[in-house]
């Protein structure tokens, strides 16, 4: 019940294309769903996050779509750029300062010029 399943494991997209990464969770107590971006040799960094009271959140070229009934959420990267090439992790957790995050398995995105 603590798992977060992420797909695909890897993704290759042409520059200017749309990258889509999907995640599914099991625990209905989760109420915070962030996406983290990790470049080689660096730690993961928060990219965008959503709470379950909205179905979509957009920040620049990055959009999270959230489907509470299906317990699924996805990251869309519009107009993908080579600089977006990184590993992306979805995560889920509870509210509060001590709530731990459960991470998905990660998706390695390569954007070809």
């Amino acid at each position, binding site marked *: 019940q603590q798992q977060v399943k992420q797909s695909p494991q890897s993704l290759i997209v042409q520059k200017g294309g749309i990258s889509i990464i999907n995640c599914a969770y099991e625990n209905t107590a989760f109420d915070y769903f962030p996406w983290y971006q990790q470049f080689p040799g660096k730690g993961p960094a928060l990219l965008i996050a959503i*709470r379950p009271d909205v179905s979509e959140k957009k920040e620049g070229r990055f959009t999270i779509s959230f489907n509470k009934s299906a317990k699924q959420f996805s990251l869309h990267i519009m107009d993908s750029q080579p600089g977006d090439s990184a590993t992306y992790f979805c995560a889920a957790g509870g509210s509060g300062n*001590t709530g*731990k995050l459960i*991470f998905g398995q990660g998706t390695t995105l390569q954007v070809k010029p």
Partner: protein
Amino acid sequence: DTAVSQTPKYLVTQMGNDKSIKCEQNLGHDTMYWYKQDSKKFLKIMFSYNNKELIINETVPNRFSPKSPDKAHLNLHINSLELGDSAVYFCASSGLAHSGANVLTFGAGSRLTVL
């Protein structure tokens, strides 16, 4: 200016040795974590401390012992290192955003290689 800093960045050691990784955050956060990232990049929480008190202890061998001397520091000591301990260990800290969400800030990682 680094928000979460951990040292050393690289550790190469023999099986059976003991090693420590240190972490410090200057964000004023109350909660700190250790995460382990394996060769498949899977991130798994190991420990969490809130104001120097252990609040999360996942299924981690007793050879791993975290210590938090104050809320800005969280160290990880590993005894009797095994080959399977080879991984990247990330320290993180968290604070509440205005939304009430728990925002994690990660360090750059410490890559441990056990030979």
